């Protein structure tokens, strides 16, 4: 793309840990070429100098948890040609969506000395619950190579190559031994969108579902099997309610397990 009209990029943060923005900064070598191709007009994590909108691309990290967030995301949407969510929080509500199953006011009373200073919504919701989103990049944090692929695809006017299959495919391509079959460890890999490189199973841990549900997963079958092999129901519910626990598939599966338990 010609340098005279570099697309203008803005990066925003909502309720989040900044890890996805750090993943962008961790692009290092590629970051230099990225700066050559796009104008980074607004990215507070990287520079306090900002340029006014409108922007061609808005990358949004974090979930919506306050009334101000709701207003701010609408403004961002208006200012941006393309809005891309980055990470589990922005795409599914994040780990902070655990509050969605609980009484937030009770948390506030327990945690804060002056609860009246705290103004928050009752739930943590993904960006797509509030405005139209052009592309959702999942992960906790995002995979920086995938982020680069999304931006590259956008610059080149093509669809990004982000295969929608299960984490299991990545385990098998790496030769990782299945932790569920060989060790009886509960793993969300068969339900979870690939992208992390199957990191956790490579270290003998079950998948935590950071990259959210894959396209048409079958959670009922997996949870039934995990119960069969002796994984406690509460453990499966907690596993499903992880970093992307509020994503439709995982939410429905955990609520179903909870209902049966009652």
């Amino acid at each position, binding site marked *: 793309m010609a340098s005279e009209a570099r697309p203008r990029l803005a990066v925003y943060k909502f309720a989040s840990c900044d890890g996805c923005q750090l993943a962008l900064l961790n692009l290092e070598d590629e970051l230099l070429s990225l700066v050559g191709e796009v104008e980074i007009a607004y990215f507070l994590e990287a520079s306090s100098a900002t340029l006014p909108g409108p922007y061609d691309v808005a990358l949004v990290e974090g979930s919506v948890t306050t009334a101000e967030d709701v207003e701010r995301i609408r403004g961002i949407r208006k200012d941006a040609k393309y809005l891309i969510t980055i990470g589990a929080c922005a795409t599914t509500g994040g780990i902070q969506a655990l509050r969605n199953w609980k009484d937030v006011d009770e948390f506030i009373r327990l945690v804060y000395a002056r609860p009246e200073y705290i103004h928050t919504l009752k739930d943590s919701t993904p960006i797509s619950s509030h405005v139209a989103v052009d592309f959702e990049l999942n992960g906790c944090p995002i995979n920086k190579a995938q982020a680069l692929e999304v931006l*590259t*695809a956008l610059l*080149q*006017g*093509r*669809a990004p*190559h982000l295969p929608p299959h299960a984490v299991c495919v990545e385990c098998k391509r790496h030769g990782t031994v299945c932790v569920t079959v060989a060790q009886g460890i509960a793993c969300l890999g068969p339900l979870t969108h690939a992208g992390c490189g199957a990191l956790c199973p490579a270290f003998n841990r079950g998948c935590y579902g950071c990259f959210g549900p894959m396209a048409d997963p079958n959670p009922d079958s997996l949870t039934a099997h995990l119960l069969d092999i002796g994984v406690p129901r509460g453990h499966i519910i907690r596993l499903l309610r992880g970093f992307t626990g509020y994503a439709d598939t995982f939410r429905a599966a955990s609520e179903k397990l909870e209902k049966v338990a009652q």
Partner: protein
Amino acid sequence: MSTAFLTSEIPNPTDPMLPHLATIQDVKPTAAGVSTFSLVFANPEERANHCFQAGQFNMLYLPGAGEVAISLSSDPAQPEVMDHTIRDAGSVTRAIGRLKVGDVIGVRGPYGSAWPLNKTLGSNLVIVAGGIGLAPLRPVILSILRQRSAYGQVVLLYGARTPADLLYTDEFDKWRQGGIDVQVTVDLGDKSWRGLVGVVPQLFYRIRIDHKKTAVMTCGPEIMMRFVIYEALARRIPKERIFISMERNMKCAVGFCGHCQFGPTFICKQGPVLNFAAIEPFFGKEDF
């Protein structure tokens, strides 16, 4: 034409996955969102030795974007120029859509089976196409025009969603003058459309032909082809004389990747042109 110096270090020229470089000689808008790209191989030897048959396809490649299977739509008697009529439908085809005359593109091919132009010599032909499905049949039409007397009655039944989606409309008169009965319909007309409105298989009712000596060649959406087959069988055209061109996902085009399987058939090798009798048990099975 570009004078670009094209290099390709191929230590293993037998690797069927390596693209061969071609340049775009011409780009012609063909219908709404559809253009015809004329390609020639960059290597003069390759250009001279290249040949293809009506119905075959090439894999077209753009670095970073990927590869896509596209039927050859030009005259097999002039194989040095390879036409590909391409709709901006996916990621790769959109990237190809942005190319200009002189640009380079990767080509592998030709692959796949051909329309039975020899086996049907002397018979009547009903050629039935829907939308972009006329592209792989254009080589058939151009071949017939070269030796029109070698065939009996030849009818083209063609339809598209709207008049703007019809391919090669500027050639229809020439085809008619050459002795092909061209019948055209659209699903949705517009203000200027004075032709027929309705689905393609209905065009069977407009033709008079001796079905005993007739073969059918069809390409289009599978649902359309299903009704074309129905109409053909209803007219007692034997299954063995019905030929269809099918589309499946293709990654390698040489039978290694497994993507294009349709029952026992690899669409890239035994297809895309298939005899209906051979695939009847599987054709139209839901999600097969």
